[in-house]
């Protein structure tokens, strides 16, 4: 550590000597830096007032970070400061200034520095000033020291930075405030003008410093916060146009703070959790979107029951506890999943559909080393494009899920070093034809239809191996007999329908007295009955010639005879009634005349029905 500090010091001094007069055009007339060390994430908010001291118009401001700090830089944003100092700034608004990495700095720049340039909204002429705020977020910048602690010890952290704002420009006045958690401060570097107020250390102000001034400071302090670091988080967002956005998040979490040494005593932890295990994880809170449903929390071996869920109209909060307390260096992996209503996140605009979703993890204050966001689009969507507020690595793959034929297109977004500031909305645009929604039901329908076709094929197929055996031939003959019997049955029931029609015509006659209509009905019935009798003949002949039919034949013949009898009786009754009407007999007379017929008809109808039932059962 001491060696490193010395190194930085030498480096700082050397650059300040060598590059003292490189960028004299701009000067920083006032720099206020506020470093927030209350969580595992280092947030440095700076207010910079830039002044053009030269003659050329300047439109961009360079920011310098030492390389070892720049590699921890997760997020950098600049917003113009429109008056109102000290207000909570929203760095995610569209008014933010574009910040870009300078890939090839000019050759006369000092080495071991990484430069970013901030483009100003308009060029600064001579004497103009511009004020903007800068938010830089660093991960893994707090080093635990000592690196290993026992269960009862309290975690101590070291933070290093420069008391002077490292800048390629001269700085006229500057100050630095370091905000620490409300706990003991082990040590801190004392320079001129160092003051301490409770948990705040203030350096400065310092005036008229040349470019690249550097004065290392080290703050060593207590922090009981657990460091939730997700080494890998895979978020899968699956869209179903049937009304759901399913989010599944696979966490691979570890405690990135001081590692535990020695043994872990569950008894001590249970008895005095705030003393013996002060920096262990107890729970994590995930802030899910409102109306989240079917929330689950599980790992490879099943459901984890230690979770709580509550919500209101603005959010849903899920509090999850790992299976065991997580000490420094320990790790756990788990999965949370939830469904969200489709209409909150999927929109239509200019013929394209787009998903509007947050990028980062819903869990509070978690640092993600590698975040992979997979957006699974419905099958049949195409023309996919992604719009993200910051650069990410993009690729595409296919996922085969429920009821898919070719698989669903998946957009994979990958980003390293993700902090809660990255929880911004991104959009995935795609084209989708609504008819493609019917693919899934079509799969189900064709599945069922295949089942029915299989049944039909089975019933139609001839499965016997020996086509010439006696039993096979007998079976074939029996099939033919059955078919013939069914046809006979069919014809008889058609005859019965014609009988019904005749009866109906008689009823009409008694109501309206229309003799002609009745005669016409009779004529039609005669015709069709004759046809049916003709159709019966070959069937009966076949049944008589077939040996197999010997058992059922008497019944069939009986049926045909009885039906014939019934037919004759009915026709006779019909003629009588029509005749009576023609001769204008009274109702009593007609009834007397047909009484005998009617009795017989009733008996025969009963017998025919019985025979039909009997034959149908064989």
């Amino acid at each position, binding site marked *: 550590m001491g060696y490193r500090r010395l190194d930085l010091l030498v480096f700082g001094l050397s650059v300040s000597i060598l590059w003292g007069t490189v960028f004299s055009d701009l000067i920083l007339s006032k720099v206020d830096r506020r470093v927030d060390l209350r969580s595992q994430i280092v947030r440095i908010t700076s207010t910079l007032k830039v002044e053009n001291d030269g003659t050329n118009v300047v439109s961009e401001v360079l920011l310098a970070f030492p390389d070892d700090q720049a590699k921890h830089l997760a997020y950098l944003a600049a917003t113009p400061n429109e008056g109102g100092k000290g207000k909570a700034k929203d760095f995610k608004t569209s008014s933010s200034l574009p910040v870009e990495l300078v890939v090839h700095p000019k050759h006369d720049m000092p080495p071991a520095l990484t430069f970013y340039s901030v483009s100003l909204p308009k060029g600064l002429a001579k004497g103009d000033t511009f004020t903007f705020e800068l938010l830089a977020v660093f991960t893994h910048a707090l080093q635990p020291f000592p690196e290993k602690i026992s269960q009862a010890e309290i975690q101590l952290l070291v933070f290093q930075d420069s008391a002077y704002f490292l800048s390629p420009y001269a700085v006229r006045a500057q100050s630095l405030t370091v905000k620490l958690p409300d706990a003991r401060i082990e040590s801190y570097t004392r320079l001129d003008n160092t003051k301490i107020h409770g948990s705040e250390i203030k350096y400065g102000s310092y005036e008229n410093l040349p470019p690249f001034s550097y004065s290392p400071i080290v703050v060593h302090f207590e922090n009981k916060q657990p460091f939730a670091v997700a080494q890998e988080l895979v978020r899968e967002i*699956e869209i*179903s*146009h*049937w*009304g*759901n956005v*399913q989010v599944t998040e696979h966490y691979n979490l570890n405690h990135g703070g001081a590692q535990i040494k020695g043994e872990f005593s569950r008894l001590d932890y249970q008895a005095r959790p705030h003393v013996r295990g002060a920096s262990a994880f107890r729970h994590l809170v995930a802030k899910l979107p409102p109306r989240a449903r*079917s929330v689950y929390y599980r790992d490879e071996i099943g459901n984890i029951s230690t979770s709580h869920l509550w919500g209101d109209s603005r959010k849903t909060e899920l509090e999850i506890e790992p299976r065991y307390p997580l000490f420094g260096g320990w790790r756990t992996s788990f999965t949370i999943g939830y*469904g969200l209503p*489709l*209409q*909150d996140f*999927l*929109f*239509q*605009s200019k013929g394209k*559909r*787009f998903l509007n979703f947050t990028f980062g993890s819903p869990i509070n204050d978690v640092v993600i080393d590698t975040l992979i966001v997979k957006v699974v689009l419905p099958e049949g969507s195409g023309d996919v494009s992604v719009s993200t507020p910051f650069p990410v690595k993009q690729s595409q793959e296919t996922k085969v*899920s*429920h*009821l898919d034929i070719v698989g669903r297109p998946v957009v994979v977004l990958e980003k390293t070093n993700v902090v809660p500031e990255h929880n911004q909305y991104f959009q995935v645009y795609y084209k989708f034809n*609504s008819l493609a*929604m019917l693919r*899934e*039901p*079509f799969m*189900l*329908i*064709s*599945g*069922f*239809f295949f*089942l*029915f*076709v299989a*049944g*039909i094929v089975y*019933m*139609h197929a001839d499965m016997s191996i020996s086509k010439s055996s006696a039993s096979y031939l007998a079976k074939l003959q029996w*099939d*033919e007999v*059955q*078919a013939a019997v*069914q*046809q006979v049955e069919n014809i008889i029931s058609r005859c019965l329908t014609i009988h019904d029609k005749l009866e109906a015509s008689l009823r009409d006659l008694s109501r309206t007295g229309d003799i002609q209509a009745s005669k016409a009905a009779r004529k039609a019935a005669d015709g069709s009955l004759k046809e049916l009798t003709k159709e019966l003949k070959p069937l009966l002949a076949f049944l008589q010639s077939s040996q197999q039919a010997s058992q059922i034949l008497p019944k069939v013949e009986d049926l045909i005879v009885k039906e014939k009898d019934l037919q004759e009786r009915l026709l006779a009754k019909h003629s009588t009634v029509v005749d009576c009407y023609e001769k204008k007999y009274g109702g009593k007379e007609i009834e007397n005349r047909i009484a005998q017929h009617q009795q017989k008809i009733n008996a025969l109808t009963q017998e025919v029905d019985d025979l039909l039932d009997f034959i149908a059962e064989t």
Partner: protein
Amino acid sequence: MKAPKPIASPVPEAWYPTLSVIMLAIGLVVTASFFIYEATSSRRNRSLAKELTTGAVASVFLGFGSLFLLLSSGVYV
């Protein structure tokens, strides 16, 4: 510029359980009639067209019925 329009499911989600029950019931009744026809009619008198139409109608109802059953039980396909 027109504001983006939210997209919702073509069928209100509250209807899923009812639709599933109704369509599955109809589908099962038609299936039953299909198998009754298969079992009772003799091989020579059976009409292939009638079998296929009954099967198709039954599978449409069973297909949509099971889709809505999946959706209402939380398996969003």
